[in-house]
């Protein structure tokens, strides 16, 4: 027989991608678990900035709706005088903040006027006492819905002046469409007459256009108004050029510069008085939103680090399961590089599947938070989108880097030794001795340098990242400590086995410990933050900011618990599988399945209890040292209660998860002669 190339056309060709995919999904439950884990890992850190953006945008919109007006006001003699005032105001205000201020239009009003007669009949003294202002309202047609008649065009001229009124004012004055009525500015003064040609009502009563409208307005054309002024029937008309800060053009980052430019505006423009409290309102808002931004930044940084750790933990356990296949390929002469490529490719394919899922999860969670918290969806402005996409790209790159490291480590392990030896105690202690002081220092950085005037504002905004990194360093130091001291009882077979396993390789659960410590720290600090927010309300002036902070803290708390319990559960399953194989000989000598299960449970719970306890203390330190919220420090017992409850909740969930998983473990591993490629 000669092995040629015939007949390969219809046969499926094995490619790198297909082999990587086949190996990655060979254990579907693990592939799905890793896929979901990566999706949550991608979604969770992206969620907090979105919540922050929703709350800040909502708060900013409320502030601008309340205080976003800028006006220039003075008396005008005629139409050309008004044109000059408009041009001068536009010249000074249009450029503020790069076009943040949008013109609402000009209002010219004169009054108050008293109703003298209606349809030739003198008015009663009750009606005569009700005043009205003659006004020219620019852009009125775009702001109202006509309910009767019409809005007359400019410069109509002719007999009686054509005027319009809001339906509510017409009712108040007892006027009807087509009524002819006369008014005078002062008792006994010259009267002039008009005819009601239109009734309207505001299309949007909450629009800034109606903000600051001075009294009941009898609207007429600009030409008509100045004709009446020229005839001496209206006196001292006051023109108001109005601008409004557009919420879609104001970002929280631009507030300092915008406030500076507003403060630099002259007090008078073309002899007109400039009025606004926009700058002060924006600065006040910025001060109010700072606790929200800083707190969520601390938690988001910590959550991102936790997410990467959990992704590493689950990825490593996933690759442990692929060990036999990788080992086989190495035995067949595949180089480490090629084998590692294949392992990385499998992880990468699952990550590629997780990206759209993560985006969808994030979108759904954002929508759910928006609905429950009453937030409008975050605006999809180019600068926001760019920031989000960059953050996603950075996180994906970090995950890819992590996967490269995991794959190369897995290939190194299967190629030469099945288990890495533990680092000697002195090396672990030395590493912990370096990490711990650095962590404490980083935790205190905001207190040490935050208030220094030399620190630029932009850097101060990013300072909350440092304590979160410090917390991670401290968690790293804590995960290097020996666990054996936490073993409670060793009298039983199960206790002795668990204790022996923990002493045998002290750092075998280090990754799980790191995740648990970080998770407990985040949960405790988020719980303390939530308690402080609900109790004292640091942002009483802006309820939407408070709701945003509460939502962000709650998401951190729940998301952290879900993420860490998922990761810890998968770690436990993988560790239990390995233990059952290790105990094969003991099963042959009478170790019962129940004893093995109790041993596995004890081993994992020692890991969980000690990590959650230390992580809880770390979270307490993070909350007190770094969260810019008014912690109830005077009420130490309350803080302790909240911390203990948070840790206890997480521990209870971990114990329930371990207990449930232990019952689902397969039976004892049946020993038989292994002659695999190991």
């Amino acid at each position: 027989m000669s092995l040629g190339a015939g007949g390969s056309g219809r046969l499926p060709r094995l490619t790198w991608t297909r082999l990587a995919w086949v190996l990655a999904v060979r254990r579907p439950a693990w592939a799905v678990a890793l896929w979901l884990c990566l999706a949550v890992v991608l979604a969770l850190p992206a969620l907090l900035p979105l919540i922050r953006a929703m709350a800040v945008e909502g708060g900013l919109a409320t502030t601008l709706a309340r205080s976003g007006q800028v006006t220039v006001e003075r008396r005008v003699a005629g139409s050309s005088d008004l044109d000059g005032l408009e041009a001068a105001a536009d010249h000074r205000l249009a450029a503020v903040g790069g076009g943040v201020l949008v013109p609402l239009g000009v209002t010219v009003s004169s009054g108050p006027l008293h109703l003298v007669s209606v349809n030739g009949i003198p008015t009663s003294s009750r009606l005569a006492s009700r005043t009205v202002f003659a006004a020219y309202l620019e852009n009125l047609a775009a702001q109202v819905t006509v309910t009767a008649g019409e809005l007359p065009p400019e410069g109509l001229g002719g007999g009686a002046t054509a005027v319009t009124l809001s339906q509510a004012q017409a009712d108040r004055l007892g006027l009807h469409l087509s009524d002819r009525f006369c008014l005078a500015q002062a008792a006994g003064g010259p009267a002039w007459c008009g005819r009601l040609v239109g009734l309207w009502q505001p299309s949007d009563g909450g629009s800034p256009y109606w903000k600051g409208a001075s009294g009941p307005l009898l609207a007429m054309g600009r030409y008509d108004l100045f004709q009446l002024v020229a005839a001496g029937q209206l006196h001292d008309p006051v023109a108001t050029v109005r601008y409004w800060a557009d919420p879609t053009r104001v970002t929280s980052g631009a507030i300092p510069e915008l406030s500076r430019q507003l403060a630099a505006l002259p007090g008078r423009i073309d002899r007109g008085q400039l009025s606004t409290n926009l700058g002060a309102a924006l600065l006040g808002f910025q001060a109010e939103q700072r606790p929200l931004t800083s707190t969520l930044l601390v938690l988001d940084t910590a959550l991102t680090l936790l997410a990467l750790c959990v992704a590493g933990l689950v990825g490593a356990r996933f690759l442990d399961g692929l060990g036999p296949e990788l080992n086989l390929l190495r035995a067949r002469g595949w180089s480490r590089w090629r084998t590692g490529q294949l392992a990385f490719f499998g992880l990468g394919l699952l990550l590629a599947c997780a990206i759209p899922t993560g985006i969808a999860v994030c979108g759904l969670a954002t929508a759910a938070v928006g609905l429950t918290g009453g937030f409008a969806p975050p605006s999809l402005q180019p600068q926001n989108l760019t920031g989000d996409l960059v953050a996603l790209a950075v996180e994906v790159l970090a995950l890819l880097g992590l996967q490269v490291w995991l794959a190369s480590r897995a290939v190194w392990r299967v190629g030469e030794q099945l288990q890495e030896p533990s680092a000697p105690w002195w090396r672990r202690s030395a590493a912990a001795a370096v990490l711990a002081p650095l962590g404490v220092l980083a935790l205190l950085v905001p207190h040490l340098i935050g208030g220094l005037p030399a620190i630029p504002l932009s850097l101060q905004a990013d300072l909350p990242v440092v304590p979160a990194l410090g917390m991670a360093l401290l968690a790293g130091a804590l995960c290097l400590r020996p666990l054996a001291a936490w073993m409670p009882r060793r009298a039983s077979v199960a206790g002795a086995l668990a204790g022996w396993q923990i002493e045998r390789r002290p750092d075998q659960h280090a990754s799980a410990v790191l995740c648990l410590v970080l998770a407990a720290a985040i949960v405790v600090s988020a719980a303390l933050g939530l308690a402080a927010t609900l109790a004292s309300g640091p942002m009483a002036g802006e309820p939407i900011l408070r709701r945003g902070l509460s939502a962000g803290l709650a998401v951190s708390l729940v998301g952290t618990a879900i993420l860490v319990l998922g990761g810890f559960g998968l770690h436990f399953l993988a560790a239990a599988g390995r233990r059952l194989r290790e105990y094969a000989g003991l099963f042959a000598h009478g170790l019962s399945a129940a004893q093995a299960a109790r041993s596995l449970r004890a081993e994992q719970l020692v890991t969980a209890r000690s990590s959650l306890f230390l992580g809880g203390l770390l979270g307490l330190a993070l909350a007190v040292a770094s969260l810019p919220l008014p912690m109830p420090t005077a009420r130490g017992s309350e803080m302790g209660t909240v911390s203990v409850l948070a840790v206890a909740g997480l521990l209870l969930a971990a114990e329930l998860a371990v207990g449930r998983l232990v019952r689902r473990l397969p039976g004892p591993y049946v020993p038989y002669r292994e002659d695999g490629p190991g």
Partner: protein
Amino acid sequence: MPTASLVQARQVAHTYGRGEDAVAVLRSVDLDVAPAERVAITGPSGSGKTTLLRILAGREVPSGGRVVVGGIDLTRIGRRERDAYRREVVGYVWQRPSAGLLAGVSALDNVQVPMLATGGSRERPGIAAQLLEALGLGDELATPPERMTPAQLRRLALAVALANRPPLLLADEVTAGLEWAAGRQLLEDLCRLLDDLGTAALLVGHEARAQRYVHRVVVIRDGVALAGETAW
């Protein structure tokens, strides 16, 4: 039969462990295998047969002696050369054949896996299918290992080991556990294929039936190659 040696092993020794725990498995083994020659290695359990096979497969470095296969001195090469040796010079069949196969992957793909590491070729599926056909698995191209009978598993393991057309096949207990007729049929098909490919083979096993299909039998006892006899 060609006379130049494909395999030259001289005074090969191997010890597991150190100090008091040291166990000498091979003491002094000399072995020559010519290209396309089939040699059976037999001996009692624990005599060192599998260890010798693992040394020749490049998976163990002998404690002493010298082993040259296809001009490559296995005692002097580095990790990368050893990887290339395992890819291109030897094919290995494990005693438990499933240990050398990827579960959940079709027979056709399993045979293509070793070829992937030696560079891309559009002819891979065709070559793999012909190998499987030659070993009687032409109807099982899409069947994964876990759905195969023990005899089919051994045939698939042989096809995988021969995928890169190595000059040397190393097979550990290739017919162990098979019925007499199934084992005989397997050996006949294997020998036909080895002759076609010009591949030499070292077949390790206890069973006498393999000896009818080899050119020579080498007995190892207590870590020493005792005799080389012509089987026919």
